[in-house]
């Protein structure tokens, strides 16, 4: 009787489900074919043209070690011509040259660039640059940048403010690669954010260069783009740009907490006689996060004049700030240890621990 009642599942015929399972089976077979095709391709790419890969690398190594004056006469062996027609092999050879160029400089680097041009790889890079696919464009910019193709600077400069962050990032790095400090001019027009990762990348790219005055630094410190201000503050900190002290002090009043934090760090490096007092004043209106930064900066530039303020801060409720203030007293005040010792006797918990902690930390 039960079976005679109509079930919802009566609307579904087994054939429908078998058909669905068959579709799954077809997809599984398709994926299996793709998996093994991929594995085969990888293996083939690794082993079969190994003669090309190994020989090309060997030839390049030999060639760059030859007489360095001989850059005009590049004779690419004919046997490579066939292999270099295949896109995979071309990209392999190009990637090899890019890696090589990154690790060499001077005349050897010039030879690598000459080979890049001779093999027609610049056209490959330009094709990528013209691509509408973002990661192709990024790769193109990267190749042109590493190979110092400065004639492309106008096109690449336009991309420094591209809405795609990866394109923008690579274009900014390229401008640095081409012109060093002068390449920073893109900061004048940058409306998009420049991430911490990118800032650090650019700073590390600048590191090998000899320090020189940074044109436009003062203007960037007043930029509407907060991340440009932070980057400019970082540059002022690293290159100790004392000439922008007033601009940096101005940044302490910025609405963005991260800007104020970086300004406090920068002021530590370009401090003058008034800086410690400015930081103490700023301390009272700061967030706890920035107060920690301010104390870290004061630990380098404070003196006996700031002692009353610091002693007061020992009574702050926040344990981190207590410790920070005690650290500044110990390092910057002439009778710092005596002050902390007296405080530890007066209020052993937590000041005895803080005293002992700093004794160990600062003896190192």
């Amino acid at each position, binding site marked *: 009787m039960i079976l005679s*009642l109509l079930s919802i*599942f009566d609307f579904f015929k087994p054939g429908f489900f078998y058909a669905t399972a068959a579709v799954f089976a077809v997809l599984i077979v398709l994926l299996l074919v793709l*998996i093994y095709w991929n594995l085969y391709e*990888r293996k083939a790419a690794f082993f079969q043209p190994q003669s090309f890969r190994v020989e090309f690398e060997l030839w390049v190594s030999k060639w760059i070690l030859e007489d360095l004056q001989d850059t005009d006469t590049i004779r690419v062996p004919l046997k490579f011509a066939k292999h270099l027609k295949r896109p995979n092999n071309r990209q392999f050879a190009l990637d090899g040259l890019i890696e090589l160029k990154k690790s060499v400089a001077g005349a050897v680097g010039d030879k690598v660039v000459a080979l890049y041009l001779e093999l027609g790889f610049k056209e490959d890079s330009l094709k990528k640059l013209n691509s509408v696919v973002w990661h192709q464009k990024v790769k193109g910019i990267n190749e042109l940048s590493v190979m110092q193709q400065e004639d492309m600077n106008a096109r690449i400069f336009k991309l420094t403010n591209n809405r795609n962050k990866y394109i923008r990032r690579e274009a900014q790095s390229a401008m640095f690669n081409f012109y060093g400090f002068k390449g920073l001019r893109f900061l004048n027009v940058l409306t998009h954010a420049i991430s911490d990762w990118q800032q650090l990348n650019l700073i590390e790219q600048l590191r090998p260069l000899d320090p020189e005055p940074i044109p436009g630094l003062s203007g960037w410190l007043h930029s509407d783009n907060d991340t440009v201000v932070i980057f400019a503050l970082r540059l002022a900190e690293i290159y100790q740009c004392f000439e922008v002290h007033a601009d940096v002090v101005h940044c302490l009043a910025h609405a963005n907490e991260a800007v104020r934090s970086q300004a406090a760090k920068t002021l530590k490096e370009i401090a003058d006689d008034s800086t410690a007092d400015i930081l103490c004043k700023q301390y009272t209106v700061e967030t706890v996060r920035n107060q920690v930064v301010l104390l870290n900066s004061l630990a380098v530039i404070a003196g006996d004049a700031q002692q009353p303020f610091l002693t007061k801060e020992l009574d702050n409720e926040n344990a981190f700030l207590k410790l920070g203030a005690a650290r500044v007293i110990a390092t910057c005040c002439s009778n710092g240890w005596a002050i902390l010792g007296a405080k530890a006797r007066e209020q052993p918990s937590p000041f005895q621990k*803080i005293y002992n902690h700093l004794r*160990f930390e600062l003896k190192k």
Partner: protein
Amino acid sequence: MNWGFLILEIFAFGIFLYSIVLFAFYVFIGVFSIGETRKYIHQNRVTDYRRIASSLHAPSVSIIAPAYNEGLTIVDNVRSLLSIYYYNLEVIIVNDGSKDNSLQKLIDAYQLEKIDFFIPDQIPTKEVRGVYKSRNPVLRKVVVVDKVNGGKADALNVGVNIASNDYIICIDVDCVLEQDAILKMVKPFMEATTQRVIASGGVIRIANSSLVEHGSLVKVKLPKDYLPRMQTLEYIRAFLLGRMAWSRLNGLLLISGAFGAFDKEIVIKCGGYNRNTVGEDMELVVRMRRYMEERKEPYKVTYIPDPLCWTEAPASYKVLGRQRNRWIRGTYETLKFHKVMFFNPRYRLLGMVSYPYWFFFELLAPVIEFLGFIAFLVMVFAGLVDWELFFALFAVVIGFNYLYSVFAVYMEVKTYNQYRRRTDIAKLLLTSLSEPFNFHPFVVWSSIRGLVDILRNQHSWGDMAREGFDKKKS
């Protein structure tokens, strides 16, 4: 009206509907993860990590590794952590009241001395017995904390209190990290401009049968044993598909306790790890997200698909059962603590999608599967099964399961391709054939036992015995 028939009918239709929605989610997750992984791989093609690794200006990071009775391997584990390629690094080992000689081994191996250390009590914890640092300046990165036993969450909280840096990375001490793991984990935090990245997870891979030498992974091998191999496939599915898709949606609720990076400020503001749950890793992420949602601050929880952390998977049914029992209890406890978010539009995607997904398809899935199986048995004995329809439905379910596994293996081959031998891939695919009949029912059964333990008020962590990695023969 026949009420028995009606109830059975509603139940069967409910399960049918549930399965359709679950399948739809899986299809969505599989497809949605592709874009995120592809984007990550493309952007990494021109990223020069070496430049940042040696930078003095790179953000400082504290690794926190709790250890309990790890005396056999602790010295090698710490050596592995010290070999990581990152300049501004602090390695905090928290000895959580081990009963073995872990602490003494560390003292001897790393020339440690007890120091006076003021620990700001930002998160309440059990008593810290001592803080140790090395006399050897080369080992200045190492901080060892000895504390009274209080569980993993308590040990991690001590690490958070001690950490001197803005970013913390919490790991299991016996994990093997790739050399560039920290760099890659820190990158999402540094790349954020409009949303604050509060946490980031990395992919965990199974290292059973792989060669590990001096705490570093020398050669990746597919696990020889069935259970670890099955978990290898499971992890590929979960990390390469599931978490990448949720990361793209910004709806991730879980970052594995074995390897996760966090913004320390938000961790402290949220009160640190919860000591009252066995799922402290998930609970922290949910609480951090809830905190940000309630303050309406833009934020993101990210995941990166690189295989950065290698761990040993349970190789016996006993240990695996305990692990899955604990996982389901952790999920239940976390969802219970944060039940206010359930279909609550105030929490946007978190309340309307992520939480309900975890509730229906992670927490309730074993219950529904188990009840479905019982109902099936009842129907068999009552002679109510339309066998033709049953086999047709069975073919769909099994077919979908295999399709999802094969797709995960395809993504693995297309992206990171850790198992390069064709025979390894074949073994992995063959292993998946047995999953619906062996591994999966066991996992469901362990989860059911976990739920029963909740009813019986059991809160134990469960011993996670390890066999140790394969070592290179000299």
